[in-house]
């Protein structure tokens, strides 16, 4: 591989890794607070992409009704992002209300909640399939693709947006969790769920807040993903969700830095394996590497071993 291809693949890996990182952040937030693996998260990402599709086509006036005014595409894009994040956060909170909270109230074990999460994911996938059919949707091109070429390496404006958004999200979440009161409450719940309510902290509010954060990040990932890969289908979230979960585990689940680093690590491994070997071996080799890594450091890169009470 010559130096130009190498840098081009670094660029490619940054985009691909960004999506893993954004989705992994959602897994890690919920796990960090509830010690719950929210397997429906990949499908919330899918729901985010679809909501983004409907909001964008609605604002463009190509879906349902014709709006009486025209907006510039950039405004539509920003509005799509914001509205999609709000609506998807609503989906995430509803999921928590309907599926997880009743079980938690009844004192069901974590295993049951994880199984419920798996089922919720399948319901989202197949509900979408039943509602919208199997035909693919094309995400409208809101930001016109501009290709930049610097020293033989190409990237697009969309690429810049994706990478910057991922960095911004990372800094934003780090600040919230480390520097704010609600962040402290989140960490406290993760530390001891029994003692926290005794301090007068409304535990359900904190949990809802966590789901809002995680789901809106998934929505952000969904809209950015759909702009970069504009073909939507109901099962688009399943595989990428599982892989992002693995990225979160490798980074050390529960750690925001871990999800970030793990996502990019997985992106880099996947792109470089496909660049060097036939891509059929991609998943085989990349997950082989991760498996070996985990067997040496089972808690992941930033993870800390903690005593589990079962």
């Amino acid at each position, binding site marked *: 591989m010559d130096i130009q291809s190498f840098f081009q693949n670094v660029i490619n890996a940054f985009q*691909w890794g960004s999506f893993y990182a954004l989705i992994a952040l959602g897994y890690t937030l919920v796990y960090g607070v509830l010690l719950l693996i929210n397997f429906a998260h990949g499908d919330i990402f899918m729901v985010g992409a679809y909501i983004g599709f409907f909001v964008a086509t609605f604002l463009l006036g190509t879906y349902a009704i014709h709006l009486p005014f025209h907006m510039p595409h950039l405004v539509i894009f920003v509005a799509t992002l914001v509205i999609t994040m709000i609506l998807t956060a609503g989906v995430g909170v509803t999921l928590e209300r309907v599926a997880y909270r009743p079980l938690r109230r009844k004192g069901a074990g974590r295993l049951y909640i994880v199984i419920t999460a798996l089922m919720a994911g399948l319901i989202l996938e197949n509900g979408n399939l039943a509602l919208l059919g199997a035909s693919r949707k094309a995400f409208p091109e809101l930001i016109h*693709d501009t290709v930049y070429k610097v020293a033989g390496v190409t990237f697009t404006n969309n690429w810049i947006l994706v990478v910057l958004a991922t960095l911004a999200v990372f800094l934003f979440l780090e600040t919230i969790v480390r520097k704010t009161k609600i962040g402290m409450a989140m960490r406290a719940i993760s530390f001891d769920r029994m003692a926290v309510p005794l301090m007068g902290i409304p535990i359900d509010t904190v949990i809802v807040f966590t789901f809002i954060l995680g789901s809106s990040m998934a929505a952000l990932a969904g809209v950015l993903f759909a702009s970069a890969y504009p073909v939507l289908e109901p099962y688009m979230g399943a595989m990428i969700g599982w892989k992002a979960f693995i990225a979160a585990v490798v980074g050390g689940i529960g750690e925001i830095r871990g999800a970030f680093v793990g996502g990019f690590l997985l992106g880099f491994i996947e792109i470089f394996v496909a660049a060097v070997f036939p891509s059929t071996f991609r998943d085989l080799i990349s997950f082989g590497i991760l498996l070996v890594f985990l067997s040496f450091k089972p808690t992941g890169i930033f993870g800390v071993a903690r005593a589990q009470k079962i």
Partner: protein
Amino acid sequence: MRKCLWLVVLCLAAALAVSPAMAAKQEPIKIGFNIPLTGDIPKVGEGSKFAAEMLKEKIDKEGGLKVGNKTYPVEFIYEDNESKAESATAAAIKLITQDMVLGIIGPQASKQAIPAGEINNSYKTPMISAWSTNPQTTKDRPYVFRACFLDPFQGPVAADFVTEQFHAKKAAVLYDIASDYPKGLAEYFKAAFEKLHGPGSVVAFETFTTKDRDFSAQLTKIVKSGADVLFTPQYYDEVPLIVKQAHELGWKKPIMGSDSWGSAELMNLCGNDCKGLFFSTHYAAAGAKGATKEFIDAYQKKYGYVPDDVAALTWDATRLMLKAIQNTGGLTGNVEKDREAIRNQLANIKDFDGITGKMSFDYAKNGGDPSKCAVVVKINDKGEFEFFKSVCPH
């Protein structure tokens, strides 16, 4: 009383005088159609039936089909196979043993054509499937033919086309290794291209697996490989992603595809990125010329929509069958002997001028598969699939 008798005699005489001419016309040539009028793919059955009805009208207007020195009326019998394999075999048996047809058109899909072909072969009745591309349909069955080309044929077609059109000396291929159709086609293309330009002329032979969304690593290699053209025999939901990412990575050279691109959905998903690209297929409605255009216009006028490839191929298949009947030089009236004669003619039809391209059969060499030209389609600026060129095998 006497007047009455005279009338009867007159009537009888008149009947006798007319009857020799009538007798010749009362024996119609019967062709069966084993098509899915209901079931999963009723649109395929509808298109087939409409095309056949149009052909029958045309023949009726000409007064019938001339075979040898006699003119026969034609009768088309439509049997619904419900798009099921077992109904297709039942329909074939009914057409052969009860309706005593001379030949059968269909079934169209390989799922029904393979079992029905077995029935036709054992009853020694010629059959032409218009649409089935699976090699099994005609394999080792001397009575079974088809009117379309097989999948492997598109590989050489694409290789010839890019060599002639773009003067390509080096080619790149990107395909899904986990799916039969793209994998087969990619390998056939590679073999054909390397035969033309020497080993190693396919400079990048890159793969991915079904459901992949990011092809940047593979496309980076392809862009760097210095290939003159990219061949990607993928389905319409992957093509937009491949094409978009290729353009983003700086690929400005031509991209070529196969008939799996030919879905109306492609342009909904792909938009501007796919305009100006090429793919090979059976038939193109936009920009058609000559007899093909006449067929499309007549069909659209009569039924209100542009005919798809099944309708066009059914038209050709039925005309092939009638041509073979004409080539026998005269029918004996003995159904079994006539079927045999028709089959022998069908096996050696040369340069048949179909609306989906010129076809020749050579049973000794190719079995029941025609050697025919493929159509290369260009996606024009309006996003229509426009006829660009016809590419024929050597």
